[in-house]
């Protein structure tokens, strides 16, 4: 209601009388004389104005000689010209790189002046993602945008990344923001393995070619994203790709990068004790080899002093430390990425086009893990008539990734093997002894999980191929200068083909029988929009009203065939397997929506936006399948309103936003069905019921969010500060709550629970120096985001969001989302451990031991330019947050970790109180028993909860722009060469030898767990850009 009063108040303005005069002219780009389309021509102090047409022409009537015209356009310095007695005014506008930030791409690809927005938005330009290039463009955003948290998992080339905008709002959803490329929402699911193993097949965001990116807008809150409906609930990342409209004539640009990838961080290994247990060698088996079962296959043997012993292969050998202290450095190699991109672009008065080809090849630190990816994209627009433009794009991305590495507890995880193998084993022996005379894998430990890493390298693998089509066609009909209709239809179509196999002879692979698996998946997201926009000025009020409709269709299907028991060795086709199985499934969902948008601007200092949208989803029961949401945003430029001297306080804006968003769910959760089972055991029909109970009256979930913020600029915007406080409450969450197994079901889909997510974001930019030859630009961004579980379903104490071994990350009422639970030591009232007579600590209760959420995180960027050199760096910071490292736990009780050296010779006297006497414990126990009992037998998590605080030098780029005077004689228009490095080193890492980002998946709670991750990597290389 208050808003309404304010609007009414704004109408109360006076109207001045003017003399009649008509002005026309042309607006051109300075230097190139290119006509500029869409330049805003405004009569100063009024809202009267127009925009230039395709030839840069404009006409304005009803003016007086006292009027001043303001010419402004995205990316150009604005210009003011007094009319005086002229009737024609031609204007040349100069390109202004700094002005670029002022106009941003907002929801539905509407370009707007950042000043007018009532919500927080961050824009990242092409240079920030395509110089220090990453295979996954999202990784380049890490640390650069407040509110955006990117965690790049350590899962081999083309791995997935965890992407969160303003933290977590829903318990069951993947919480990933919507990614929209050129107006078409694309597939964005997380990837990764589970704690028990598997591989990370990457996410589809890695198919966005950094070389094709023009700009990236990050719409952080629901207020900014409400036009996307429920899809935008977790914020939106809008990617605009290059369209060829910036070039005149025919231009060619070439971008080439090469970088090395090498191992940056490995666990600290001890190199003093080898295989055995309790300080002794393992007993020797009948086959002459030592007992390879626990604990003798661990590194708790005698000190390695060159004495003779029987090694793991049964050979007499000198028992001495490994010459190379670190098996990772020996096993993993230096990988590389090479990328070449060639783009042809052009533009004339009838249209524009851009054709680009990118080829990317890479090899990971595991030698057979390779990537080959080609991207072809064609973008063109044509002006069919004066007021009708068609635009279209087709991109085809084809990629082939070989041998994505196995992760976590997976039997083929090379890092797991290398980190646990007894320290006396020489990797050379392992490499040279993979298969025995019977064709069986030669193992160092008989457990299925622990294997010969070279056997896996030689005999197990996978091929992941993807064909990805993205495209759209759109038409824009400008009916008159006030009314405009745009229609757009686009799709994101992905076909993947995945084969994995394992040879015969390894127990871990189907008991030695060999295995084969072939998946074929298709997914298609098809979006169609029609949007009519009417703009007008009523007095000082600038009004834009839009009505739109959207139809979205999601389709996915899978087919799987798998087999075991190979007939012929090393042949991987389904016909070669004695047992074969198959399965298939499809999933379809449609949503159609209607929406209305309104923007009101008053006097250049007050802006108000509203959105109203109705979605209808096939995933919800008919009675509840239609739902509404709305958003209201307001921006007030108080510096303009109050007439504050712009030389000191150059920008002052207060903004506020409120949004209510609904959300549906994945299909088929509201119907009770029977599955028909495939079986060879029984000749009868066998049917089964899924463990997840459906809900027959599921309602959409609702999230209400508001944010307030300020944008302040000092000294001609040499210092700018952008601060936002936000709060989102998501209620009626649709979730599959885990229920007691005694119901005969494992979960039930319900509407329940509430999560409150709130936080503060700030971005500060300072330009201490700026001159023609030298400039220095410093940026800080800061985010503090907390998600608290207010309620869960009644009677439900906790929902597990994931678990590893016996630690779990949970949502519990009253607690922070993502609290890590695990067994603690048994303690007395003073917190002292209770120790048994055997000198071992006792297991206590399961308690909260940490939380995945950082206290805050942020980035610090520096850009220094001196003449033709520029140096940029990015340091990212995460303060606080914890994770559970079962990798370290394993290394501790296997005795390979440096920390396991404590108490080797004389035992460990655990600090604590004897359980019977109440006195200080003085019974020693062996270090082996302590580690094994605490971590494995008693499953105590306390000692392997690690602090995730870290400061990382994430990016450094040194660029040399070739001087124009050198290039003048050549056909090259511009060229630059950069030396770039990414993830170079930790400036601080609380956990020491483990990368807190080294997760094995990219789901919302994935940062809770580390398990024998591949070593984290850094990359460094060169990037060359040439424009012809």
């Amino acid at each position, binding site marked *: 209601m208050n808003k309404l009063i304010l609007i009414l108040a704004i109408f109360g303005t006076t109207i001045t009388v003017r003399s009649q005069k008509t002005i026309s002219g042309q607006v051109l780009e300075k230097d190139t004389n290119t006509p500029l389309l869409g330049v805003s021509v405004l009569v100063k102090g009024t809202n009267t104005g127009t925009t230039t047409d395709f030839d840069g022409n404009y006409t304005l009537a009803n003016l007086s000689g006292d009027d001043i015209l303001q010419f402004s356009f995205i990316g150009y310095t604005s210009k003011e010209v007094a009319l005086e007695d002229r009737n024609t005014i031609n204007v040349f506008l100069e390109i202004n790189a700094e002005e670029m930030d002022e106009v941003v791409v907002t929801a539905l690809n509407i370009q707007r002046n950042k000043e007018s927005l009532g919500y927080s938005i961050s824009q990242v330009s092409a240079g920030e993602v395509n110089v220090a290039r990453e295979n996954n463009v999202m990784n380049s955003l890490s640390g650069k945008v407040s509110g955006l948290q990117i965690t790049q998992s350590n899962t081999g080339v083309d791995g997935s990344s965890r992407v969160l905008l303003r933290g977590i709002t829903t318990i069951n959803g993947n919480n990933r923001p919507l990614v929209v490329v050129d107006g078409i929402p694309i597939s964005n699911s997380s990837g990764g393995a589970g704690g028990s193993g598997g591989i990370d097949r990457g996410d589809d965001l890695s198919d966005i070619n950094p070389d094709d990116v023009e700009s990236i807008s990050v719409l952080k809150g629901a207020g900014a994203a409400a036009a996307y409906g429920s899809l935008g609930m977790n914020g939106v990342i809008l990617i605009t790709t290059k369209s060829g409209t910036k070039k005149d004539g025919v231009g060619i640009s070439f971008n080439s990068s090469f970088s090395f990838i090498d191992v940056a961080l490995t666990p600290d290994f001890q190199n003093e004790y080898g295989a055995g247990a309790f300080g002794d060698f393992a007993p020797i*088996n009948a086959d002459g080899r030592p007992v390879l079962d626990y604990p003798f296959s661990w590194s708790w043997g005698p000190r390695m002093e060159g004495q003779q012993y029987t090694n793991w292969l049964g050979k007499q050998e000198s028992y001495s430390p490994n010459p190379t202290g670190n098996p990772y450095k020996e096993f993993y190699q230096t990988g590389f990425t090479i990328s070449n991109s060639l783009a042809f672009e052009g533009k004339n008065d009838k249209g524009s086009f851009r054709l680009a080809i990118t080829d990317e090849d890479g090899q990971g630190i595991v030698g057979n893990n390779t990537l080959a990816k080609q991207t072809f994209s064609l973008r063109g627009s044509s002006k069919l008539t004066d007021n009708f433009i068609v635009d279209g794009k087709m991109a085809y991305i084809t990629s082939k990734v070989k041998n994505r590495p196995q992760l976590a507890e997976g039997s083929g995880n090379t890092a797991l093997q290398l980190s646990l193998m007894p320290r006396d084993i020489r990797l050379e022996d392992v490499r040279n002894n993979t298969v025995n005379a019977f064709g069986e894998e030669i193992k160092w430990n008989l457990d*299925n999980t622990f294997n010969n890493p070279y056997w896996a390298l030689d005999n197990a693998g996978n091929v992941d191929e993807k064909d990805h089509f993205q495209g759209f066609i759109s038409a824009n009909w400008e009916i008159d200068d006030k009314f405009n209709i745009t229609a757009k239809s686009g799709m994101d179509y992905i076909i993947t083909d995945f084969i994995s196999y394992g040879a015969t002879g390894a127990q871990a692979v189907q008991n030695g029988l060999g295995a084969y698996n072939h998946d074929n998946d298709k997914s298609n997201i098809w979006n169609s929009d029609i949007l009519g926009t009417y703009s007008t000025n009523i007095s000082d009020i600038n009004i834009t009203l839009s009505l739109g409709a959207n139809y979205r269709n999601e389709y996915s299907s899978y087919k799987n065939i798998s087999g075991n028991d190979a007939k012929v060795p090393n042949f991987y086709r389904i016909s070669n397997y004695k047992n074969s199985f198959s399965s298939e499934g499809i999933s379809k969902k449609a949503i159609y929506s209607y929406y209305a948008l309104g923007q009101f601007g008053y006097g250049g200092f007050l802006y108000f936006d509203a959105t109203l949208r109705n979605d209808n989803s*096939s995933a919800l029961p008919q009675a509840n399948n239609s739902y509404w949401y709305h958003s209201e945003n307001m921006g007030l430029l108080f510096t303009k309103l109050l007439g504050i001297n712009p030389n000191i306080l150059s920008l002052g804006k207060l903004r506020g936003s409120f949004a209510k968003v609904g959300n549906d769910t994945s299909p088929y959760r509201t119907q009770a069905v029977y599955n028909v089972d495939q079986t060879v055991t029984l000749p009868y029909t066998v049917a089964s019921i899924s463990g997840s109970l459906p809900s027959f009256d599921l309602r959409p979930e609702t999230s209400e969010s508001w944010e307030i913020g300020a944008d302040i600029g000092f000294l001609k915007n040499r210092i700018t500060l952008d601060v936002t406080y936000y709060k989102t409450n998501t209620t009626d969450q649709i979730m599959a709550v885990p229920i007691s197994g*005694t119901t005969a079901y494992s979960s039930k889909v319900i509407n329940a629970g509430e999560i409150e997510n709130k936080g503060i974001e700030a971005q500060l930019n300072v330009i201490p120096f700026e001159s023609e030859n030298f400039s220095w630009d410093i940026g800080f961004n800061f985010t503090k985001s907390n998600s608290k579980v207010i309620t869960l379903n009644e009677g439900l104490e906790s929902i597990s969001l994931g678990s590893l071994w016996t630690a779990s990350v949970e949502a519990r009422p009253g607690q922070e989302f993502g609290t890590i639970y695990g067994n603690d030591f048994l303690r007395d009232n003073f917190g002292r451990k209770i120790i048994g007579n055997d000198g071992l600590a006792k297991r206590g209760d399961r308690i909260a031991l940490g939380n995945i959420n950082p206290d805050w995180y942020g980035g610090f960027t520096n850009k220094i330019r001196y003449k033709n050199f520029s140096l940029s760096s990015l340091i990212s910071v995460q303060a606080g947050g914890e994770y559970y490292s079962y990798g370290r736990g394993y290394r501790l009780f296997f005795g390979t970790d440096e920390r396991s050296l404590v108490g080797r010779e004389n035992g460990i006297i655990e600090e604590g109180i004897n359980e019977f006497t109440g006195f200080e414990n003085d019974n020693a126990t062996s270090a082996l028993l302590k580690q094994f009992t605490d971590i494995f037998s008693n*499953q105590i998590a306390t000692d392997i909860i690690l602090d995730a605080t870290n400061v990382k030098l994430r990016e450094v780029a040194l660029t040399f722009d070739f001087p124009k005077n050198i290039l003048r004689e050549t056909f090259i228009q511009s060229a630059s060469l950069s030396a770039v490095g990414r993830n170079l080193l930790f400036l601080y890492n609380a956990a020491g030898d483990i990368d807190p980002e080294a997760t094995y998946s990219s789901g919302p709670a994935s940062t809770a767990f580390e398990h024998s991750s591949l070593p984290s990597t850094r990359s460094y290389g060169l990037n060359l850009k040439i424009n012809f």
Partner: protein
Amino acid sequence: MQTIYKVISKTAAVAVLGVLFLSCEGHLEDLYDNPNAVTEIDDAALFTKAVRSLYQGTTDNGSSHFAGMYAHYYVAGSTWRAPDQYGDGHDQDYNSIMNEGYSGTIRHIEEVLELTSKPGTQNNVRYALANIIAVLGYAKITDGYGDVPYTEGGKGKSQDILLPKYDPQESIYKDLIMRLTNSIGTLKTADPAMAYPDSDPIYNNDLEKWVRFANSVRLRLAMRLRYVDAGLSRSTVSQCLSEPLMETPEHDAYMIETEGTGNAWFNRRTGFPSIKMSAFLINQMQVTNDPRLTVFVGQDSNGQFSGIVNGLTDQAFGNSNFANLSDMGLALSSPESKLYIMNAAETWLLRAEAALAYDEDPVQANILYRKGIEVSFNQWEVDATEITNFMGSTIANLSGINDEEQIGVQMWLALIPNFFEGWSHIRRTGYPVIPVRTSDDLSTGATNGIMPTRFMYSSFELGANSTNVQEAISRQGANKIDTKVWWDKN
């Protein structure tokens, strides 16, 4: 004229919008249905699923990872043997064992019970058969944990009960027996065409065998009550004896599971974690020259029968030469090996115990005891001369001194490979006597070296169904692995 055009165009616009809206609504409805499954099915398919789950349950986590080692049949290799050390750090296992119990047999048989008692699909015969399967499913769960949800258990779908209350084991057992009695009553006079002519993996719709089976299960449950409710036990036993029981291996309830790479025992003999047979078991059979030794136990690498001692400490285990010891016998651990939920031998031995306990008739008990041994030999196709030899030995006759123990030991052997039942049997009768672990080489775990007597309620269950499970704990005793279930008095 113009107004007419306006009306027409407005009507057309409304009509187009209307059609658009309706077709959208229709489109959403079309997509609503799950294309990967069906919404209606003959309950026969669910019955088959439930029955199959019951057999698969004989190799599940609770049976193979815990009961088989607790009952000293074998020891698994590597860290998989941890339960053999009597520890209680198995929270996830305790949860998965309970879930497996309810999600396989119970989930599907509850649906069958629902369908066969509902107007339209009502069928008394099928309902009676389903009850037998439900009884077996619930009996195993309560035997493992003690008090468990029963009247409200397994009703997540049929009655929307998400926080089921726990029932005392006593009331569960009484109801299970009653359900069997009702089923037997129905099935004696039932028309097989009304049963499962094409969906019965146990007896191929032979209702006479089903009656024997149900009655034998009732006998098993009745004897379970021997030490806690002798009155009900005795009266139920006499009821059982008045109806046909399982008598020959033809009456055995078995199934062969060949899915995937074969049944669990085959996989554990050929792969990881390898299982080696218990020294306790091998010793028992060697001392008595039991011909089933070669059936149950494979030869070691020296052509001998050598077993692994249960409960070794980590250090002692390392020195045990584990890898070279005797595997499980091929008859038990081949892809075509049968999985049993009940056999005739067990029935004879239950009758022998009943004769001794309730009829105080050692002569009859001895006849039944010998019958039990012989039927077990027949089940495993032991050579006729070997049968004759063994039946002539002293062990094949009750001595009158330790008859209970003799019957108990034979029962333990006859139950193989139904290891879960073997563990329940030892808990109830105390036979064979599993020695308390005192040697330095042996782990005493969380029980001071005494064989664990139940599974713990998992921390997940304690969180997910807190009030009800706490009530059960306060009634039953501490949530520990050495708390005894209601029927366990030995």
